[in-house]
């Protein structure tokens, strides 16, 4: 910050600090490390969705030349999991989804490992399977985890013993019965959101080395090295000081690389082969089926409104298809339970969010953490009610959208809320109130739609972060954190924050992360929490270092530290420590790098190191019975997306012509990276709205490849893709910032769905909205409901 109070870095569009490494091929991702004589792992997977493993014959595989080990679930029986210990790295006794890892092989080459997998013989006895959350809920449904009642579980989750329900989240606010009694009209709508996949372009890869001195190193493409370290240490009883997780650059995560997925398979193999590196690469097919998928969901929303359109009561139910293991999924179900009525000021809410085991691929965190799914329902519901009430969707949102002073679903009073400003901004930019100009082609109809969204970080109320900053002898710095650079730009943003505090040029700071041995603790890089949590830790570390420098500068400059400031001098690639009232009295900041040498030759202070420790300062546990709390989450990020579409009634194709979003990031640290996140989020949302679905039939994924799972290409993006901003600072955020990475995806899909509905006069109760769906409506039939239970 300059002497007249202006930011030097915050709000700039500093080019990515990792840009050069990434455009030259120098950036190393987990799969880019190859080691001499490394061994390759491969996995035998279940052909059945639910079956008892009767017998495994590995003898032929073991005899194959070049095979080192063949292990089964019997080799390692301990169950693990982030929130609910329900998962084995290799199936034990039963398989619970088609594709589940049953046997792991390691061999001298990947071809031998593959061949060995083909030689493993497994006898299965098929068990009745469950393919929808509704079936899973039924009394007498086959139990996928009969011993659920014995599993270790974090205390905020409520598995229902002897059922397939691994978590039932309950939110009660006000009195819904009274709300409905007082309502002028009551609406009930249902929706279905299918499974989708994250599709990071880098598939999961991991290499593990158990060295002959007894330490384990794992090269992993993970979002959260510390969480991986904790999970692996727990699973394999390895002390934390003997376990190192390295993850420098990650080829995108979107949640799929949170938690542990692949590492647990190679570690036992590493332990069996001390001194040899063991590597496992997921193929794209594995990535679709065996990395996390986004859970499918069925939503039902009952809404009571008064004559003017004010929502008086909401009763909603979400049934989540959690798949075979829900160790992480339970928390998504909780997040949906917290936010289920949307960013609206509603006095009476009853939400039930259920996590159900099914024999489907394993559900896990995906950008939005449940919010994309519930908002597809919430925001179409708002439009549908508005239409039935004869008021505009904008008006409906103006009446109900959160304003400062309103209370959230969980009973927290919103100190700030950018909802109304974001809405106004998008309405104006999209010119929403003016109908789309129609093209000459009689087969094409254009229309616009809007949707809002909100999200809070779903993290423990005491989630912690740390940062260390060290000054080098020449006045450059090392900034150490364990926030993971997964593409979102955290390395750049955190560098800017430190540079701002210290008044140094960001190119004087080198950030290191992605190595648990070298860098301090970070809970996880998830939940759109990094700018806020790691950012606070970095800010505190830089302030700590600054304090240290100023303490010594008092002696050197002979004045009180309140009268000393740091001044950036880019012309000379340095920063001065300046006596404010006598600016000619100044020394380079490097003077204090190793402490201060006094006139008598003695030194004080020692090397300049700043530490920052941040833990959420004001988050409180919620009441289990109703989810109410004065402040259960760090912050809410709110925004609005508008879309214009062109529907071709002859081919059913939907072309998205415009997408415009406005969010409230509190304070933008880096505008270019903010815009880039918003644009990417909108296109990812567009993919789910019109293309993407993991097609499941009897537990089989029918489209586990890019031939039949289509994500958007450069050709599909709207001509106008725009990111706007309103800024209401977050009280506890660094420089007022709050997280935006996930929220920016949330309103995209319902905005498109609402636009399509405005074009066709029909709301689809599911996504993606395919050409097939469109033509069905054009033919005059009512579209098939996919939300039916």
């Amino acid at each position, binding site marked *: 910050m300059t002497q007249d109070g202006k930011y030097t870095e915050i709000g700039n569009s500093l080019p990515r600090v990792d840009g050069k490494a990434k455009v030259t091929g120098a950036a190393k991702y987990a799969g880019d490390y190859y080691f001499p004589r490394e061994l390759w792992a491969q996995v035998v997977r279940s052909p059945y969705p639910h079956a008892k493993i009767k017998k495994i014959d590995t003898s032929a595989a073991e005899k194959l030349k070049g095979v080192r080990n063949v292990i089964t679930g019997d080799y390692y029986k301990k169950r693990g999991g982030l929130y609910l210990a329900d998962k084995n790295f290799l199936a034990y006794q039963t398989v619970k989804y088609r594709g589940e890892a049953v046997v792991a092989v390691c061999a001298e080459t990947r071809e031998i490992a593959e061949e060995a997998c083909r030689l493993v013989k497994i006898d299965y006895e098929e068990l009745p399977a469950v393919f929808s959350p509704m079936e899973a809920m039924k009394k007498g449904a086959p139990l996928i985890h009969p011993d659920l009642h014995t599993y270790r579980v974090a205390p905020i989750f409520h598995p229902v013993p002897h059922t397939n329900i691994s978590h039932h989240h309950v939110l009660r606010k006000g009195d819904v019965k009274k709300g409905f009694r007082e309502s002028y009209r009551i609406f009930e709508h249902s929706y279905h959101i299918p499974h989708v996949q994250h599709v990071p372009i880098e598939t999961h890869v991991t290499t593990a080395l158990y060295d002959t001195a007894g330490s384990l190193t794992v090269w992993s493409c993970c979002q959260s090295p510390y969480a991986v370290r904790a999970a692996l240490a727990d699973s394999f009883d390895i002390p934390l000081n003997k376990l190192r997780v390295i993850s420098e650059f990650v080829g995108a995560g979107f949640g799929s690389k949170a938690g542990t997925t692949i590492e647990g398979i190679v570690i036992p193999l590493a332990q069996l082969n001390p001194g040899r590196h063991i590597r496992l690469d997921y193929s794209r097919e594995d990535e679709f089926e065996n990395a996390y998928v986004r859970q499918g969901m069925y939503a039902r929303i009952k809404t009571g409104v008064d004559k003017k359109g004010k929502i008086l009561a909401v009763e909603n139910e979400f049934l989540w298809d959690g798949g075979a293991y829900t160790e992480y999924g339970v928390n998504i179900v909780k997040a949906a339970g917290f936010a289920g009525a949307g960013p609206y000021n509603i006095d009476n809410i009853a939400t039930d969010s259920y996590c159900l085991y099914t024999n489907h691929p394993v559900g896990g965190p995906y950008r939005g953490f449940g919010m994309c799914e519930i908002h597809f329902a919430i925001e179409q519901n708002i439009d549908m009610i508005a239409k039935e009430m004869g008021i505009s969707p904008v008006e409906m949102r103006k009446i109900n959208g959160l304003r400062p002073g309103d209370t959230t679903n969980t009973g927290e009073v919103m100190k700030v809320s950018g909802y109304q400003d974001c809405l106004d901004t998008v309405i104006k930019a999209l010119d929403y109130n003016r109908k789309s100009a129609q093209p000459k082609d009689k087969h094409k109809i254009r229309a616009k739609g809007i949707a809002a969204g909100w999200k809070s970080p779903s993290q423990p109320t005491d989630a912690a972060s740390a940062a260390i900053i060290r000054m080098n002898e020449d006045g450059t710095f090392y900034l150490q954190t364990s926030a993971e650079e997964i593409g979102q730009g955290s390395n750049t943003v955190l560098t800017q924050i430190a540079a701002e505090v210290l008044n140094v040029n960001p190119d004087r700071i080198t950030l290191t992360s992605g190595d648990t041995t070298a860098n301090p603790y970070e809970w996880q890089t998830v939940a759109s929490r990094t700018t806020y949590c790691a950012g606070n830790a970095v800010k505190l570390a830089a302030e700590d270092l600054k304090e240290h420098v100023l303490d010594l500068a008092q002696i050197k400059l002979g004045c009180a530290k309140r009268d000393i400031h740091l001044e950036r001098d880019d012309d000379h690639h340095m920063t001065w420590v300046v006596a404010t009232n006598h600016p000619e009295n100044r020394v380079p900041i490097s003077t204090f790098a190793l402490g201060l040498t006094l006139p008598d030759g003695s030194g004080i202070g020692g090397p300049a190191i700043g530490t920052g420790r941040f833990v959420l300062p004001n988050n409180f546990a919620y009441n289990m019975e109703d989810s109410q709390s004065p402040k259960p989450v760090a912050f809410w990020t709110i925004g609005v997306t508008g879309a214009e579409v062109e529907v071709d009634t002859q*081919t059913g194709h939907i072309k998205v012509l415009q997408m415009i979003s406005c969010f409230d990031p509190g304070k933008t640290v880096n505008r270019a990276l903010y815009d880039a996140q918003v644009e990417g989020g909108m296109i990812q949302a567009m993919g789910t709205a019109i293309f993407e679905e993991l097609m499941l039939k009897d537990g089989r994924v029918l489209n586990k490849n890019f*031939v039949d799972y*289509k994500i958007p290409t450069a050709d599909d993006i709207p001509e106008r893709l725009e990111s706007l901003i309103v800024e209401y600072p977050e009280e506890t955020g660094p420089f007022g910032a709050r997280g935006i990475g996930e929220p920016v995806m949330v309103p995209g899909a319902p905005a498109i769905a609402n636009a399509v509905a405005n074009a066709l006069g029909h709301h689809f109760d599911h996504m993606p909205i395919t050409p*097939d769906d469109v*033509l069905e409506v054009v033919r005059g039939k009512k579209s098939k409901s996919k939300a039916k239970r």
Partner: protein
Amino acid sequence: MKEITYIAPESISEALKLLTKHKGKAVIFNGGTDVMIRLRENLIQPDYVIDIKRIPGLKEITFKKDGLHVGCCATMNEIAEHADVRKYYPYYAKACASVGSKQVRNRATCIGNIVNASPLADSATPLYAMDAVLLIEGPEGKREVPVREFITFVRKTVLAEDEIVLGVRVPYIKGAKGVYTKNSRRKEVDLSNVCATVVRTGDEYRIAFGSVAPTPKRLEKTEKLLNGKKITPALIEKAKQTAVTEVAPIDDVRASKVYRLDIVQAIVENSLLALGR
């Protein structure tokens, strides 16, 4: 991928000898964009992979008044960008340009596309519409087979294991105009869920559809209905109704049967309107 022996012969006769010697155990490797996938997924398990791309002369594209000759190693991009193809067979150029990505089209060949005999081969319908002829060489010598007789079923052709398709001849018909249409979920880099070429010469029509039957298909009844007649809205309607009786699309992950039938009608209508102008 299993172990293989890669051989790159430098003449046709050498290639034919290799195919005869390793009959049943060898696969011809051209652009490789399909063979590589099939090798990787163990759908084929040959011992020998015979790369024909180093044989001189097989990349040639030449146009004379009797028609176009496309060598078997000419890539999709080379065909799509060739001046004569763009001038005389723009719909064929468009079909080749609609295959896969730019990277794939720098490797994939039209002949490979035909030999694969996929029902939805993008470059097949222009050849069907033009009654193109494949030039084949085997140990017994050369033979010519019309493309419509070459593909017999899904991934089945009349090509013997020791034969090579050297190229294709596309007849030239003066004044012929054509329209190629591809309908897919995503515009770029996707498979057709219906593709078609409609060619008009004077008042004669040739209509070829892909992805609506086990092989690409000419809609002969529809052609007959249209031949010699003036295009009117009523005739277009009749043509659409006839067309759907000639195709038998299926439901799959890419589209439903009903959807494909709608698209067949849309393509018939749009193509006739475009050619009528």
